């Protein structure tokens, strides 16, 4: 039994930052890197199933990213994942979520897992599409924004809750194998201690190239992508004012603002 968990090393922004010269992303000097928050939950869900199972369950974490993404993989290994796979090639720069999903699908075909748990979205790019696209490439069923999962190892069906608008929940069942994108709050992710992360260096971490997966440069990167970022920018700030002072002072200030706005 195998569970494949695709994860992403995301950028976390500082309060003050600058944009890259081409204006299409933030200058890398101004962000830290960390494991995507949603992936903390998808990894945890896989680990909980592993720990609850009496039979052997292998949890494999996979990411598409350069060398430094190993840090995110090690964090997952420290938490208890069995091994990790990282795919990289310079041609992967500029890939959109569709191109990334294409790569992940090849990894899934290679590993033939029983389940794939992805995060609902990444906290930096927030397309919420990689997991879903991966299901499409694999031609597997999928459920997105899963907030509760009832799945026993080896079962051919899983029962899940999904979050809908307005606080509604949808309960559904899905044929396995399938791809589930996991929502925050489904569980309480564990902490990866620094010692654990260091010790995770002894766990297996395979690096794969596009060749290893039978893909060419044109399947990925800008060529293999269906979308392209034109620019990122900080929108102009709206007007806001925090009114302080005593109740009387606050009321006076508010009255003055209303008068100003009405042109009185």
């Amino acid at each position, binding site marked *: 039994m195998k569970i494949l968990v695709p994860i992403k090393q995301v950028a976390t922004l*500082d*309060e*003050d930052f600058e944009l890259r010269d081409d204006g299409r992303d933030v200058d890398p000097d101004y962000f*830290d890197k*960390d494991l995507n928050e949603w992936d903390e939950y998808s990894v945890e869900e896989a680990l909980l199933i592993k720990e609850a199972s009496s039979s052997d369950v292998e949890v494999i974490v996979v990411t598409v990213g350069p060398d430094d993404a190993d840090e995110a993989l090690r964090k997952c290994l420290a*938490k208890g994942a069995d091994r990790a796979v990282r795919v990289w090639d310079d041609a992967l720069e500029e890939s959109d979520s569709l191109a990334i999903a294409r790569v992940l699908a090849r990894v899934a075909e290679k590993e033939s897992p029983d389940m794939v748990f992805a995060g609902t979205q990444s906290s930096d790019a927030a397309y919420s599409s990689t997991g879903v696209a991966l299901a499409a490439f694999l031609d597997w069923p999928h459920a997105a924004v899963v907030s509760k999962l009832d799945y026993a190892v080896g079962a051919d069906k899983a029962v899940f809750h999904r979050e809908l608008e307005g606080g509604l929940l949808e309960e559904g069942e899905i044929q396995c194998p399938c791809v589930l994108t996991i929502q925050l709050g489904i569980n*309480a*992710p*564990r*902490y*990866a*201690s*620094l*010692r*654990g*992360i*260091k010790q995770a260096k002894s766990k297996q971490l395979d690096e794969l190239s596009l060749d290893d997966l039978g893909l060419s440069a044109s399947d990925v990167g800008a060529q293999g992508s269906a979308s392209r970022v034109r620019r990122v920018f900080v929108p102009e700030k709206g007007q806001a004012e925090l009114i302080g002072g005593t109740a009387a002072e606050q009321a006076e200030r508010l009255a003055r603002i209303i008068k100003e706005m009405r042109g009185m």
Partner: protein
Amino acid sequence: MNIINPAHDPQDVTRTLFQDFSTWMTVSFYVVAITAIAVFAYGVWMQIAKYRRGAPDRGWKMLGHRFMTMLKEVFSQRTVRRRDKPAGHAHALIFFGFVLLFIGTSIITLDYDITGPLLGLNFWHGSFYLWFSLVLDFAGLALIAGLLFMMYRRGWLRPPKLDYARPDRNPDEPDYNRSQYRIEDWAFLWTLVIIALTGFVLAAARMVWLHADPLVWDYRWWSPVATVLAYAFKGVGLTADGGEILRLYTWWFHGILALAFIAVIPYTKAMHMLTAAGSLMFRDPLAAQRLPTVPEEAVQVGYEKVTDFSWKHLLNLDACTKCGRCHEACPAATVGLPLSPRDLVLSLREFANESQWPKLLGGDPSKQVVHGDGVNQIRPETLWACRTCMACVEICPVGIEHVPMIVQMRRHLVEEGEMDPLLQGTLQNIQKKGNSFGENKRKRARWAKDLDFEIKDARKEPVDMLWFVGDYASFDPRNQKVSQRFARILTEAGVDFGILHDGEQNAGNDVRRVGEEGLYEMLAENNIEALNGASFQSIITTDPHSYNTIRNEYPDFGARFAIEHYSSLLDRLIAQGRLSFPKTLNYRVTYHDPCHLGRFNRGFDAPRNIIRALGLDLVEMQRSGDNSFCCGAGGGRIWQADPVGVEKPSENRMHEAAQIEGLEVFVVACPKDVTMFEDALKTAGYEGRFVVKELIELVYEALGHEKREREAADVA
């Protein structure tokens, strides 16, 4: 003066042992005695075998010194008297009474069973015997007096610390009920009282029986208590024959009870006679201040199973006498959070016995993991309730090291990844950014930008004093103001100082006490590297937490720095006349000792000297000095939310302070105290009644700066 009548041969002035006993009686007695000693020895061996299954400890060094220290503590009874003088004095009566009676009985055994038959040497007669009788008579009286007071205390005074109410279990849980302890407590007192009383009855009956024998009767006043009792027996009509019968039955009753008591020592509360001495002998004077390191190659970290505990900590568990001093001092137990150091220790003791005792005595080797929800297991919420404030370690009369035990168990939880999400977030921030605020490293010294002078960068130019600022004083807006004032004070006193700017990281004191040892190691190494890269004479810090770890724990990482808390520096500057105060402050204040400055590092005097130098009217709270009551921030608790609906330790402290009539300022000397108590001042409803201030702020005010600042603002 010759105390022996010249008509008597001193050899005959003694007590004939087994007088008028038939052989079978004497033999029976030896069978019972040897059996009792065998049962005792088996118990001791079994407990030692249990300790030996524990992990190694560094306590074996300087054994002679440790032994002498232990003797001093035991014979002075200092630790038993602390914060409970009546109980301490009563315990001293019991202790010395018991010790003397034990030595007395041993002397008789030595004379009768060893030196007599083996060497033909008998010494238990004549004037030695008479003085011996007098001492033991008083020892028996002391023992009874002490025991009676303890009974009065348990039965009538009923101090709350002895009620065994557990904050860590609900009354409906199977291990909540500790009534068997109560039975044991009473059985212990009654057994000893009866042994002592029957000893006197026995002696008095013997006197009545042998009153015609001048070798007995002429020397009766060498046993005054027994003699008074003998007169009473005679007064109610006891004859010599009656005395003989009474003596015979009491002899057996007393003898068998005393031997039974010896037999059960290793299995009952009486065990503390041995374990408390052992525990005191191996006590680490820096147990809470300097936590154990983890070897780099260690596969497993912290305490998961009973056998992961160091042998000393297993011994600690057996040393507990349930005196309740830790329970009373603990901030978590006081406000009703699910932790009492006493109950933690007792649960672990029961658990260790259940898992390590032989099957014969109910041992179950399948129970090894101490964590969990089961009977006598330790729950995560219990471990996380601890603020590592050291109140329990400080007051424990038998040297139990609760704090390192708790941190070792937390280390296991951390390795398992089990902790509060808020705490996880903070630790990740510290991992990534080196500070608990999740702020960019570059912002660490931003508070210094508002000053009208530059603070030297100790990495770039040599300074006399390197100021280790700490996270709270660097990033928390309220505490930044205190930092600015301290910088001005130092400048005014002409101190040559600098800071590490963004080279400083969280010192790691609290990270270590959370149990995240790997992260602590990283922080300690980074800070040591930064400190080694700077040029300075000594370190000064405004943060007691950083003070503790740099002073006591960094040496384990190969870095010894001279470091002091700001209070001792200011005290010195005032004494040297380098700081003088044009303005006298006359507020009524009280002073809260920060755990890490006071209890941890004995910095009690300097802050008080400063307070006096400022002319303040200092009124102490009931819990002060080494009994200061933690603000609740320690051990990483400041990074976790306290449960809603439960009083916070800081609020409890505010209620205590508010009892001081006319209190104007609650003075603290720790940035975390400022944060905790300013919050509690509001939530406990005292806002407007008094204020919380850092001592630095009062010093600054007395320097007259506040007025000047206000004038400058008015002009502007």
